C-alpha cells in the first residue's frame, strides 16, 4: 500500500514526485512507457515562458509566472542545462504593435518582471539576423530555455534517490475505491494507494473519467519542429516569437540549451493522441513561418525533424482540482505546462494535504544530484580522476557530441538508468548530433547489451516493439 500513487512520468508527474519525496511518504509513479518523459515532455519547444501570454486570472498565468521564477534554482539543484536567454515577440506592422502592447500590459498584470517594448534598431542590434521589416518587439528578459526531457529525467532520478518508486511499462486501465483506498488496475498487477494524482497528460481525461471527476476532454494538437546543426545555432541568441494573428500563434525560432537551433511548432488538431509523425506540408509551413522572422534559415542545415502533441483541455485552462476525495488532477497541462509544472507540484501537494495527507519533512532529503557531468564538461582534474576510475572515459562513442563510453555507462547505471537507445540519447546526448546516431548507434546497442546483460536483439530504440535487430546473420 502506497501513501500516494502518481499516474504519469512526464514533467508534471516527475515534478510532483520530487516534491512529495521531500516528505516521509511512500510514493509510486506509474508510467505506461518504458522510460521517463516519453509523452509531451520529450517533444516541445523547451521554453521557460516569461508569463505574458496567458490571460490574467487563469491557472496558466498564475503557474507560468511562479514556475518561471522557480526554474533557475531547480535546474541548479539538479544540474540541468538552463539558460536565461531572453525572448522577443516581433511586430511587423501596426496591428502587431498594438498586440505586443496588450501583451506588455498583460505581463505587468500577471507579475512578469523586466518586460519592455523595444524599437526596430534595438531589435536589430540585439539580433542582427531578424528580418529587416521588423518594426518593434516585446522584450522579456526573464524568458529562458531548458532541456525538458533532461529536467524530467533529473526530477525522476532525484525523486527515486529520495525513495519514490517508479513502475514503467505499466498502464493504468481502471481505478476503483474500496474503504477509502484506491485500487489501481494495470497490465502489470494491481496497486493500492491512499491518495492519487492524475498527471497522465494526453490521457488525463480518461483517468479523470475513471475517478468520476467532472468531465473534460483533451483535444490532441500536434506541433512539428525542425532541428538545425550547431554550426547555425547562433543565428539568434534569444527566443524569437511572432505576434499571434488570426492565422495562428506564429512560428518561433530559438537556440536550444545545447547550441542547436530549432524552428516550429505549427498546431494541427488530431483525432489520435499518439500520432507524432511529421508531414511535408507541416515542415514547409514551419520553415516558411520561421523565415518570416529570421534570415538565413537554410533547410540544408536541418539535422532532424520531429513532432509533439499538446494536451489541450476543452475547458481552455489547466485542470487542477479534486475529482474525487483524496485524488488530485493535474490535467490538460498544455503550454506553458513545462514552465508551470515546477510550480504546479507544490500546489498539488497542498491540495493533497487539504484532503488529509499528513506531510512530515524528511531530514535526509537529498537535494542535489551527483555525478552528472559529462566527460567533456569536466575540469582537467575531474577528467583525470574519471579516467583513473574507468578507462572507458577515454573512449569516444558519439563523435559528434564527443560522448565517451564512460558517460554512456553512467547513463545506464544511474538511478532509473537508460535501457534503450533513445534513453541513452536523452540522458547524455549520444546520437543527438549532426550524424543522428549513424556512427554511434551500433556501438550504443552493444554497450546497452553488455551493461544490462541482455541480448543485442532485445535492445530497443524506444518503446516496446521498437526492436533494432532481427536476428543473427547466417
Amino acid at each position: 500500500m502506497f501513501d500516494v500513487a502518481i499516474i504519469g512520468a512526464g514533467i508534471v508527474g516527475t515534478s510532483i514526485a520530487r516534491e512529495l519525496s521531500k516528505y516521509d511518504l511512500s510514493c509510486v509513479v506509474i508510467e505506461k512507457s518504458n522510460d521517463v518523459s516519453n509523452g509531451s515532455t520529450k517533444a516541445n519547444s523547451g521554453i521557460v515562458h516569461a508569463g505574458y501570454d496567458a490571460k490574467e486570472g487563469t491557472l496558466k498565468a498564475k503557474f507560468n509566472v511562479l514556475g518561471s521564477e522557480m526554474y533557475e534554482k531547480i535546474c541548479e539543484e539538479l544540474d540541468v542545462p538552463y539558460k536565461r536567454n531572453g525572448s522577443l515577440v516581433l511586430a511587423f506592422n501596426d496591428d502587431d504593435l498594438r498586440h505586443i502592447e496588450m501583451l506588455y500590459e498583460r505581463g505587468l498584470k500577471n507579475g512578469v518582471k523586466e518586460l519592455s517594448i523595444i524599437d526596430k534598431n534595438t531589435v536589430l542590434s540585439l539580433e542582427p539576423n531578424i528580418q529587416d521589416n521588423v518594426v518593434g518587439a516585446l522584450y522579456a528578459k526573464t524568458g529562458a530555455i531548458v532541456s525538458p526531457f533532461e529536467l524530467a529525467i533529473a526530477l525522476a532520478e532525484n525523486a527515486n534517490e529520495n525513495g519514490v518508486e517508479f513502475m514503467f511499462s505499466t498502464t493504468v486501465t481502471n481505478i476503483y475505491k474500496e474503504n477509502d483506498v484506491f485500487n489501481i488496475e494495470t497490465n502489470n498487477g494491481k496497486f493500492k494507494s491512499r491518495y492519487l494524482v492524475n498527471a497522465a497528460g494526453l490521457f488525463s481525461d480518461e483517468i479523470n473519467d475513471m475517478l468520476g471527476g467532472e468531465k473534460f476532454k483533451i483535444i490532441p494538437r500536434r506541433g512539428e519542429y525542425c532541428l538545425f546543426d550547431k554550426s547555425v545555432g547562433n543565428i539568434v541568441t534569444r527566443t524569437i516569437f511572432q505576434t499571434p494573428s488570426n492565422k495562428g500563434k506564429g512560428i518561433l525560432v530559438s537556440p536550444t540549451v545545447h547550441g542547436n537551433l530549432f524552428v516550429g511548432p505549427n498546431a494541427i488538431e488530431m483525432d489520435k493522441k499518439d500520432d507524432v509523425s511529421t508531414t511535408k506540408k507541416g515542415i514547409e509551413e514551419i520553415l516558411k513561418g520561421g523565415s518570416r522572422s529570421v534570415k538565413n534559415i537554410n533547410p540544408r542545415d536541418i539535422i532532424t525533424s520531429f513532432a509533439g502533441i499538446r494536451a489541450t483541455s476543452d475547458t481552455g485552462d489547466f485542470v487542477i482540482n479534486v475529482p474525487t476525495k483524496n485524488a488530485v488532477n493535474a490535467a490538460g497541462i498544455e503550454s506553458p505546462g513545462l514552465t508551470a509544472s515546477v510550480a504546479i507540484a507544490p500546489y498539488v501537494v497542498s491540495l493533497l494535504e487539504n484532503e488529509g495527507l499528513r506531510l512530515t519533512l524528511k531530514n535526509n532529503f537529498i537535494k542535489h544530484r551527483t555525478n552528472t557531468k559529462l566527460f567533456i564538461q569536466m575540469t582537467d582534474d575531474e577528467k583525470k580522476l574519471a579516467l583513473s576510475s574507468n578507462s572507458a572515459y577515454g573512449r569516444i562513442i558519439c563523435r559528434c557530441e564527443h560522448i565517451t563510453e564512460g558517460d554512456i555507462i553512467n547513463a545506464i547505471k544511474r538511478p532509473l538508468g537508460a535501457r534503450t537507445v533513445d534513453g541513452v540519447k536523452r540522458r547524455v546526448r549520444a546520437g543527438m548530433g549532426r550524424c543522428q546516431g549513424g556512427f554511434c548507434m551500433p556501438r550504443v546497442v552493444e554497450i546497452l547489451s553488455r551493461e544490462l546483460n541482455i541480448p543485442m536483439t532485445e535492445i530497443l530504440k524506444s518503446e516496446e516493439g521498437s526492436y533494432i535487430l532481427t536476428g543473427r546473420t547466417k
Partner: protein
Amino acid sequence: MERDLVIIGGGPAGLAAAIEAKKNGIDDILILERDKRLGGILQQCIHNGFGLHVFKEQLTGPEYAQRFIDEVEKLGIEYKLESMVLHLGEDKKIIALNPKDGLFEIEAKAVVLAMGCRERTRGALNIPGSRPAGVFTAGAAQRFVNMEGYMVGKKVVILGSGDIGLIMARRMTLEGAEVKMVVELMPYSTGLKRNIVQCLEDFDIPLLFNHTVTKIHGKERVEGVTIAKVDDKRQPIEGTELFVECDTLLLSVGLIPENELTREAKIEINPVTNGAYVNELMETSIEGIFACGNVVHVHDLVDFVTQESFLAGYGAAKYIKGEKSNSANKFKTKGLNGIRYVVPNIIHPENVKDAVNFYMRVSDVYHNVNLIVKDGDKVLYKSRKNHVSPGEMENVKLSKDILQKVEGDELVFELEEVAI
C-alpha cells in the same frame, strides 16, 4: 609531446600517407585512429573489388587494408588506436583522447588530415513521417551485418543507389532478407556500374530512377514507406504515391567529408566538395597541414585514395625537410561546363614530382563528349568519352613538363560536345 608528422585517421588514406612520408625520410610519425583497428571503412567492406588499379588484382576491403597495415608494421611506424582527435589548432596543436593515455596534446611540425567521411542521414533529407526503429544508414547496417553478425531487417527498401546501398542490397539478399527495391531520386545512379550489375541485376532487385521516399510509416518499427515519382526539379509528383510494405529502410544517400577538425583549424573549405582546398602536394590553405582521401572529396575507388595519399605523404616529407618551394609561380584549377569540381585546386609546378593526377566529377550524365583541359585558349589535353556520370570519378594526368608551361593563372577543365 612534439612530433614531426601526425596523421589523423588510420584508413587507407592515412596509412598510405604515413608509408610514403617514411619512405621519404621522415622517421618521427604518429598515426591517430579512433577505431579499435587500422584500416578505416574498408574493414567493413568484406566484398571483392578493391585494388584493381594499385595491385592489379581483386581484393576484399580488409585484404586491401591489410597490405598497408603490414607495410606500416614493417616500416615500424607508430600508431595509437582508440585515439580520437578532439581538437586541431591553426598552429598544428592537436588534442586527442584515448583510454590508455587519457587526454594528450601534441605539437606537430606537419599534419595529414585523413578522417574520411560520414553518411548523410534521414534528417538531412528531411523525410516526413514517423520516427520508428528500422531506419538505418547503409553503413550502420553494414557494420551490424558484417562486423557484429546481426541482421537489421527482413523486408528492405533502399533509398539511394550509392555504392554502400548497392553492396548492402546484395548482402541483405544473401543473408535471406527480401530487398524490395532501390529507389533513386536522380535519373542515374551515383554508384559504380559494376555494382549495379553485380548487386542488383544479378539478384533481380528493381532500381527505380526518378523516385524518392516521401513518407515513413510505422509507430515503433518501420511498417512501410510511401514512394513517389519526382519531376525534373526532383519534387514528388502528386498522384504517383505508392505504399511499399517493409520493416527496414536503408539510406545510401551520399557521403559528407568529415571536416569538423578542418573547420576548427580554419582551413579553407571548398563548398562543392565539402573538403579542404588543396594544392599539388595535397597541402591545405594552412602550410604544413595536408589532407587526402575521402576527407578531401568522396572517392568511389580506394585505389585513387591511395595514390592521392602517397602524394600527401610525399608533400608532408618535403615540407618537414624544408624542401618545398614557396615560389610565387602558381595557377588555379577550375571546372566548367559539366565539370563540377577538380582536385587539386592550386598548382605550383616546381613542387610537382613527375606529374599531377587531377580528379574530377561531372555534374550530370553525358554521352559523346570530350574532356578538355585549357590554358587560356590553348588546349593542353583532350580525351573522348562515350559516357560520363557523376557516379564515376574522372581523372586526367598531366606531366610536370606540361604544367611548367602553363601561362595563365587558371587551368580550366571542361566538357565539350562532340558532333556526330
